[in-house]
């Protein structure tokens, strides 16, 4: 039975005016009341059909875009309050929706877009009428993204796009893509890349889902065969799209290093260990406690970066240490969960474990992409080594 539509009133004129802990409580209470069960603790990424209802509740509440300015339909929250909102969503186990329109496209259009682009795209991005996917990686441009080859040739008032994008998360659900394509060849490969907005229903686009190791279809390859895009869909100046793509490296990077995801995996580990009666086993208990302390100590480091945001300070490149530690920790946790499950770890899907039902493999699978996407951990280490530790390039 679906609950009645959530109230849209009772929002204070200014969220920023509420004391932070009151704000957190208001958010928490509302999420607990209105978040549909089907988006909580999903085994994989949420598909649009699963998220649609939750999206629309948040939209009607005016909460779908916490970081956008109020005049554009956002909540106008400061970074620290955006973090609080994320924390509360994570706390409730809300799965991630196809939110790249909110987190990426909106802020980019607000900064680099034209008036026409904003009035065209911002309202439908908020309402969920436009669902965005990210067209960055290519078969031969992964970590070395700037070597991308998908071309966009300017012919009159249109670009003609040829090539393909890969690892495009949930492209099959998307109505639009924000795309990096090569418009010219400069002295440096970062030059000559342009940032384009693409309607996925344009003729010449083919989306082929890729089955992942867990058996799910979450990412896709997208093919472009003489796809015509209006010139008006160019964001910023031609050949200068690289700096636009790189511009979103602010406090958003904290999210990727949040202890919440490893904590959810840890809860699964605990569930399995309890069911298997392993807490009386000193060898297990030591490994368990070590991971637990790694997790709590990650939280201590995370809190320091949050404090930095709270003080209004910009985050440095050192924040990526959270991503490295957190994603690798999640993998270590999920590995111990496999050992703890003993023979059950051989079984796919939900497994009956002494009265409870656990998907033992889910944390294992969901912990794998974290070290690869968003700049692989190897790339993060390269960056830390040169920019933070001052080692030679």
């Amino acid at each position, binding site marked *: 039975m679906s609950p009645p539509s959530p109230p849209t009133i009772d929002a204070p004129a200014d969220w920023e005016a509420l004391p932070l802990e009151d704000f957190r409580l208001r958010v928490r209470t509302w999420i607990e009341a209105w978040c549909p069960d089907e988006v909580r603790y999903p085994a994989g990424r949420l598909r649009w059909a699963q998220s649609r209802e939750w999206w629309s509740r948040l939209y009607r509440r005016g909460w779908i875009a916490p970081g956008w300015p109020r005049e554009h339909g956002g909540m106008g929250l400061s970074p620290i309050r955006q973090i609080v909102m994320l924390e509360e969503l994570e*706390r409730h186990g809300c799965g991630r929706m196809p939110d790249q329109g909110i987190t990426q496209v909106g802020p980019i259009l607000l900064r680099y877009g034209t008036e026409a682009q904003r009035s065209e795209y911002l309202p439908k991005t908020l309402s969920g009428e436009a669902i965005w996917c990210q067209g960055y990686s290519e078969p031969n441009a992964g970590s070395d993204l700037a070597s991308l080859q998908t071309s966009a040739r300017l012919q009159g008032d249109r670009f003609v796009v040829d090539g393909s994008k890969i690892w495009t998360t949930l492209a099959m659900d998307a109505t639009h893509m924000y795309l990096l394509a090569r418009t010219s060849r400069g002295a440096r490969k970062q030059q000559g890349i342009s940032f384009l907005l693409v309607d996925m229903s344009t003729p010449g686009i083919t989306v082929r889902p890729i089955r992942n190791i867990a058996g799910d279809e979450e990412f896709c390859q997208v093919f472009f065969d003489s796809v015509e895009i209006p010139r008006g869909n160019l964001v910023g100046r031609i050949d200068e799209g690289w700096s636009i793509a790189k511009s979103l490296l602010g406090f958003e990077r904290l999210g990727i290093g949040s202890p919440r995801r490893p*904590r959810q995996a*840890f*809860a699964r580990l*605990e569930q399995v260990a309890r069911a298997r009666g392993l807490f009386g086993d000193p060898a297990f*208990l*030591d490994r368990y*406690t*070590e991971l*637990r*302390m790694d*997790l*709590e*100590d*990650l939280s*201590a*480091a995370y*809190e*320091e970066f949050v404090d930095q945001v709270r003080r209004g300070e910009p985050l440095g490149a*050192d924040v990526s*240490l959270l991503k*490295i*530690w957190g994603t690798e920790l999640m993998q270590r946790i999920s590995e111990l969960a496999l050992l703890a499950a003993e023979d059950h770890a051989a079984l796919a899907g939900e497994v009956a474990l002494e009265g409870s039902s656990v998907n033992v493999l889910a944390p294992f699978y969901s912990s794998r992409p974290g070290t690869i996407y968003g700049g692989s951990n*190897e790339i993060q*280490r*390269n960056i*830390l*080594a*040169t920019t*933070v*530790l*001052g*080692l*030679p*390039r």
Partner: protein
Amino acid sequence: MTEPSGVDPDEGCALVARSAADYLARSDPLARARRWRDRTPGYDREAWRELASLGWPALLIPEADGGLGLGLDSMVAVVRAGAAASLPEPLTEVLAAAQALVHAPTSATRTGLLSRIVAGECIVALAVQDEAGPIDLQRIGTVAVSAGQGAWRVTGRKRFVAGGVGADGYVVHAHADHQPVLFWVPADCPGLEVLAHAQADGRFMADLVFADLVLPPDHLLASGEPALAAAWAAIDTALIGSAAELLGLSQRALDLTLDYLRTRTQFDRPIGAFQALQHRAVDLYIHQRIGESVMRQLLDALRHDPSAELRTRGASRVKARAARSARQITREAIQLHGAIGFTDDCEVGMHVRRALVLGAWLGSELEHRRRYARLAPPIVD
């Protein structure tokens, strides 16, 4: 703990940290550590008096007892800097043992000792272990019986007394009348034998052997619950202090390693340009940062809630973490330096060996994880 009247604690801590940096920069503690290695007591008594003139042994002693009345932040700042500079004097050891006196009930013995510690005239060490492994203050090992007229006759043996060789006396945990007690045992007491054991870092630990040692009545510092509370305050202070030392020495080992990676050339380029080494260096940096975060969080938490419960749990957490980080960093520092890293001339070795001692003293990573698991509430909300 009473707050200093004139100076606010943050300011006091900053002042102390600055004067520590000055002193360490001009007094070459590393050379002193090398000079005193492998010969008792392992440090320079003259230098100790200078440290006392800077107020270091007095940091945590309340103003009412003649000390500076500063918080754990200031201890952490000073011992951390001292460890980075290879300071050989037993600062953490004395600060910790003095905490047992601070937490003991008021007495003439306590007052006298604290003022001598502040003056740098008394080096005191903590003797709470009868054997290796988890510290158990309920365990009956060293025993005191009445020797008439309020005096005590003590028999037994205390082990792993860091800073115990060359000390002027000991705060000794024992059992009397079926309850735990703390005694003050002067080093020159007849019936006390101090056996020196060489530590991995060239300093010394003592075993104290009590053979019908007789103590006057006023040497009983505390008994029952107050004795336990005072002993745990001292042990936790030692754990937090050793964690701070570990963080200081691991930061130093990391800095030395990064410098080496930037300057050592092989295959016509600085070896720090090789990705395999860069990634290892980054992992060490992450270990260091996580350790720093845990220490900072603990100090913040204790400022708001100075309860023994939080202190004890936090002490195990930070000791386990700092030992883990320092283990990784000091071992890798050898490897990343190559053969030079295995020489006695290379400073890295000083930190490797100190990390071995601190990693084991008063409980390893393993023991503190166990203790933390017993003490800490479950994580899942």
